[in-house]
């Protein structure tokens, strides 16, 4: 019981609430990620007791992941990478004048998904983490291919264009120093390209600047943002009723999100894409996905917050980061004098239990903080659209710059903005390209290491049980609609 009392003490609760508002603010700003929110909060937590410090980190990460969905829904700019999938139907709902409902649903599902994720973290952490530990290069390779296949399949329109977009993303990911040999690839003698293409500037360009260009290309009327025409008031009760009706989607997505999040390197962004893809593939109205259906909002938003619970599984139990946020957290835990690993449950049992309790508490607080976050955010959107567009350009520029304090990243953002603008003109989906950029290093490294281990033999890639499982899943991703149709005909 002591951990319950400690967790509810104002010394923990007040910093926790402040960190959540901070997370809402940072996550809601295009270009500032949940990882950045956590990284910025670490120095503040250094002088605090470990439970307060970890509570603040948890609060900032959960709230910023949700807040990333706010610009994703209203402006088609994912505030964080984990909000990429939320853009698809969330923004379409906004275009139909249902932006507030989309975000309310997003908030309720994020909190519910978060609760499910944390409960799974508490209940099934050890077996899941053990499974993830069994993964070798071959399984990670197929996991990357699986994620990429999902994004290509779920992109609207031509599958071939989706796949080629993913391949372009993979090619872009090869820019920079080769991780094995250190040889600079496609850097053209530029020092800034040695670290590769900055993912955040590329994403801001592809989703933010291209959207601005698309808006300004038409008549004066086209300059209007759809969200401004709507009275933006979160309707939590309506959202709650919708969520109850679609509760199975929430549970399914949260479970997938937690599982994917528990796989090291996968994180909330892939969890959101995979859940969205699974929901689209299994839904009766899969053709309507991407046009503003509620399931398209529920699936990724339940999954990305649930994934945060999942990322803590390997981090806490085995000291292996599930994503970039938990990578920072592990460093911070060492700083607080804590040693992540199986012994932490024995040595710091009260702390871990307190942390679990706080993680559940955060989900309830998220509804309150998120509600005010949405309300506050709408003041920004109630401004004249032209002002908002100019502000979006400036925030995109500064957001791109702020990641590495690099002017070069501003130009990267502009180039990707142009690519995004032109690609949309020729009906090439952008999401697979983004995922290709994220998964590129993981796919390449595991492919190369796997081949090196076997002197070039591909056999282990196709013979290991978990690899075979992923291959079957990939096969199902591509052919599930045909299989379902065939089964329907047969039965």
């Amino acid at each position, binding site marked *: 019981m002591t951990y319950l009392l400690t967790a509810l003490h104002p010394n923990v609760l007040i910093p926790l609430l402040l960190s959540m508002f901070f997370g809402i603010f940072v996550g809601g700003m295009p270009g500032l990620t949940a990882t950045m929110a956590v990284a910025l909060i670490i120095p503040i937590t250094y002088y605090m007791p470990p439970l307060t410090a970890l509570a603040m980190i948890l609060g900032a990460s959960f709230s910023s992941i949700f807040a990333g969905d706010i610009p994703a829904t209203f402006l088609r700019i994912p505030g964080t990478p984990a909000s990429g999938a939320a853009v698809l139907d969330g923004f379409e709902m906004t275009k139909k004048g249902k932006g507030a409902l989309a975000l309310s649903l997003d908030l309720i599902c994020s909190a519910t998904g978060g609760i499910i994720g944390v409960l799974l973290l508490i209940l099934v952490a050890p077996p899941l983490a053990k499974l993830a530990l069994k993964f070798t290069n071959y399984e990670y390779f197929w996991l990357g291919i699986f994620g990429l296949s999902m994004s290509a399949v779920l992109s609207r329109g031509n599958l071939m264009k989706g796949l080629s977009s993913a391949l372009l993303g993979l090619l872009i990911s090869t820019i920079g120093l080769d991780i094995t040999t250190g040889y600079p690839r496609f850097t053209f003698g530029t020092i800034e390209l040695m670290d590769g293409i900055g993912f955040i500037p590329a994403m801001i360009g592809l989703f933010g600047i291209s959207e601005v260009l698309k808006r300004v290309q038409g008549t004066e009327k086209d300059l209007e943002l759809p969200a401004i025409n709507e009275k933006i008031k979160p309707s939590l009760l309506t959202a709650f009723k919708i969520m109850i009706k679609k509760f199975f989607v929430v549970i399914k997505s949260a479970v997938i999100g937690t599982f994917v999040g528990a796989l090291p390197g996968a994180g909330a962004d892939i969890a959101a894409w995979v859940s969205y893809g699974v929901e689209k593939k299994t839904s009766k109205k899969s053709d309507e996905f991407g046009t503003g259906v509620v399931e398209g909002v529920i699936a990724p938003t339940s999954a990305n917050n649930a994934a945060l619970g999942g990322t803590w599984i390997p981090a806490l139990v085995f000291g292996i980061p599930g994503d970039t946020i938990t990578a920072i957290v592990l460093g911070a835990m060492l700083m607080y004098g804590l040693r992540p690993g199986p012994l932490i449950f024995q040595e710091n049992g009260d702390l871990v239990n307190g942390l679990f309790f706080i993680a559940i508490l955060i989900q309830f607080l998220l509804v309150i903080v998120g509600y005010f976050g949405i309300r506050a955010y709408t003041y920004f959107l109630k401004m004249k659209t032209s002002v908002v567009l100019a502000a979006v350009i400036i925030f995109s520029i*500064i957001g791109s710059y702020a990641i590495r304090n690099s002017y070069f990243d501003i130009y990267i953002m502009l180039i990707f903005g142009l690519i995004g603008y032109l690609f949309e*003109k020729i009906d090439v989906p952008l999401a697979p390209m983004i995922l290709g950029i994220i998964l590129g290093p993981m796919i390449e490294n595991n492919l190369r290491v796997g081949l090196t281990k076997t002197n070039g033999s591909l056999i282990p890639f196709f013979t290991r049980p978990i690899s075979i499982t992923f291959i079957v899943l990939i096969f199902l991703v591509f052919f599930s609609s045909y299989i379902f149709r065939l089964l329907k005909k047969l039965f």
Partner: protein
Amino acid sequence: MDILNNEVINSPPFFKRGGLGGFTMKVKDLSYGIVLVIISIFVFIYGSNFPEFVVRGNRLPGPKFFPFLISFLLLIFGLYFIIRSLLILKTSKSNNSVEKVTKKGLVRVIAVIIGISFYVPLINLIGFKIGTFVFSTIMMSLFGIKIFKSMLYSLILTIIIVIIFEKIFLIPFPQKFFPF
């Protein structure tokens, strides 16, 4: 100025009927296919200079292995789009045909691109605060807000940005005239 009229551009065939939005699927696929082929050929040529990765006499997958693999696949995709567009005789309209590019819109698109390109030299020349204010005023005016209102909104926006990024996040920007 005629170029600023809100009429759909109709002079060059490229923009015919709804500008880029009216671009037919056949031409789109052909252009995309050609771009993919050019990219893959470029990677093959540029990447051929990448060194081999040999450890104790064993030739292992080196820096060029993955880009070449991807480029090979891109080449196949590129050829697929080219052949498909050449084989399809009937042209069909794209999904985006409703999104029209107006003359004034095109000017705005080009101005935004040029504006962002010149933002960095601008803030290096006159400092982050004044540079952001000037850039913001130009963008807002370009989007149809009257100059005085643009200046007022830009002033508020600049103050917010300075407080958030310079004062709270302590991100370093060129100062020039305002060293505070």
